[in-house]
């Protein structure tokens, strides 16, 4: 593991690795995602208790919820690695994660909101701790991007962003445990919990496979953005050399 990191911390190695990893992740992720969607939309029996057919939205909602938390953790970890060891690639990763994370958080909010209209009878609850903590996550992503964009140099943007990202990380456990601490309309955990999953296998397997598929897609997107960033940095450097700077 340690070896792998030191290999990947080198941008050239990273470009070499990601050149093959990106298309593979896209294709495998698409296949798994398509399979789980097929299962979700046509194969799985509807669960009347969860609002009938609308519960099929679970197969988008739940992975997107896990992924947006995971992406924030990724952002925090990448920021930490950059802050301590100054691996430039970690900063490139953090920068790439932010927009994907914001998009997935928006997706989680949107699907939850649609589902909520069907089951709770309302699109939005201003005092539900689960909804609010996810909304805070969304604003953390936005704030992170805004802060980076506002700072003049890449170095200072990276440092300021890292500080913010690390502070914001406390919000993730807050999201996870919000349903346990406060009274929330949102249901408690049924998959990721100490006693093991409580979901029937018909639901659980497509859900997990769909999660894996979307996870691969997300990784592919992040890697794509990272490659673009590295290329643009290299182009900048080349340009500067051409112009006789440096």
């Amino acid at each position, binding site marked *: 593991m340690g070896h792998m990191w030191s290999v990947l911390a080198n941008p050239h190695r990273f470009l070499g690795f990601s050149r093959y990893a990106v298309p593979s992740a896209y294709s495998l992720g698409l296949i798994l995602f398509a399979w789980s969607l097929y299962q979700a939309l046509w194969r799985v029996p509807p669960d009347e208790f969860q609002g009938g057919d609308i519960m099929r939205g679970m197969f988008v909602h739940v992975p997107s919820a896990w992924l947006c938390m995971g992406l924030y953790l990724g952002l925090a970890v990448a920021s930490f690695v950059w802050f301590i060891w100054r691996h430039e690639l970690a900063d490139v990763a953090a920068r790439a994660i932010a927009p994907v994370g914001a998009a997935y958080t928006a997706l989680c909010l949107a699907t939850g909101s649609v589902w909520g209209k069907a089951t709770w009878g*309302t*699109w*939005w*609850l*201003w*005092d539900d701790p689960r909804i*609010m903590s996810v*909304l805070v996550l969304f*604003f953390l992503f*936005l*704030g992170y*991007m*805004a*802060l*980076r*964009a*506002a700072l003049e140099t890449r170095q200072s943007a990276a440092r300021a962003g890292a500080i913010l990202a690390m502070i914001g990380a406390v919000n993730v456990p807050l999201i996870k445990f919000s349903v346990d601490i406060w009274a929330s309309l949102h249901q408690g955990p049924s998959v990721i919990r100490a006693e093991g999953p409580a979901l029937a296998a018909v639901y659980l397997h497509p859900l997990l496979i769909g999660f894996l598929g979307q996870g691969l897609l997300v990784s592919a997107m992040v890697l794509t953005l990272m490659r673009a960033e590295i290329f643009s940095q290299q182009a900048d450097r080349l340009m500067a050399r051409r112009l006789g700077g440096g």
Partner: protein
Amino acid sequence: MRAAPIRRSFVQAVMEAWSGGAGLLLPVGFFSGTAMLVPFALGSAPDVLSDIGPGMLWLALALASLVTLERVFQADLHDGALDLWVQEPAAISLVALTKTLAHWSVSGLPLVLLTPLYGLMFQVPPETTLPAMAAFGLGGLTFFLWGGVAAALSASVARGGLLIALLALPLYLPTLIFGGLTVKTGFEDSAFLFLLASTLFALGVAPPAMGAALRLAAD
């Protein structure tokens, strides 16, 4: 009088506003963030919410005008750009007006464009969307104008933040009242006319006041 100085002061101010903070992302995030904060402070029973929804946005607009303009004139004073503008033959009040309009267009106008979206979120009846957009547009402009006067007056004061807020709040009141009524009653009612009048009044009075305050700050 030549138009170039006015045009350039607009361009400079828009660039200043734009460069400092991630373009449009910032005001959009800001308005959404404030809208999010208020239900916690004020309670969120659904009927209350659709009632206070527009109120939240008024507060967000007032806050945006305060925090935006606070830095503008103070920065001009400290970096010496104010000296240069004061020496232009173009009236400093026109330049100040242009700067204010520029900052409004970057930090206040987005709320107008987002109004339909917020209307959905707060379950406001759709037929009030157009009056609400007009009210946020005119009202926001007025907030920025009076906020500009307050900011120019306290540009040379060290702890201007609270002072600006204190100076601006009473000036905001009439706009807030008529604007709030316009959102509720639409264009037919006289409230809209009063709102329009208060905006025109601000457009007439605020620029010379800003000009005088800025001359004073440069002295």
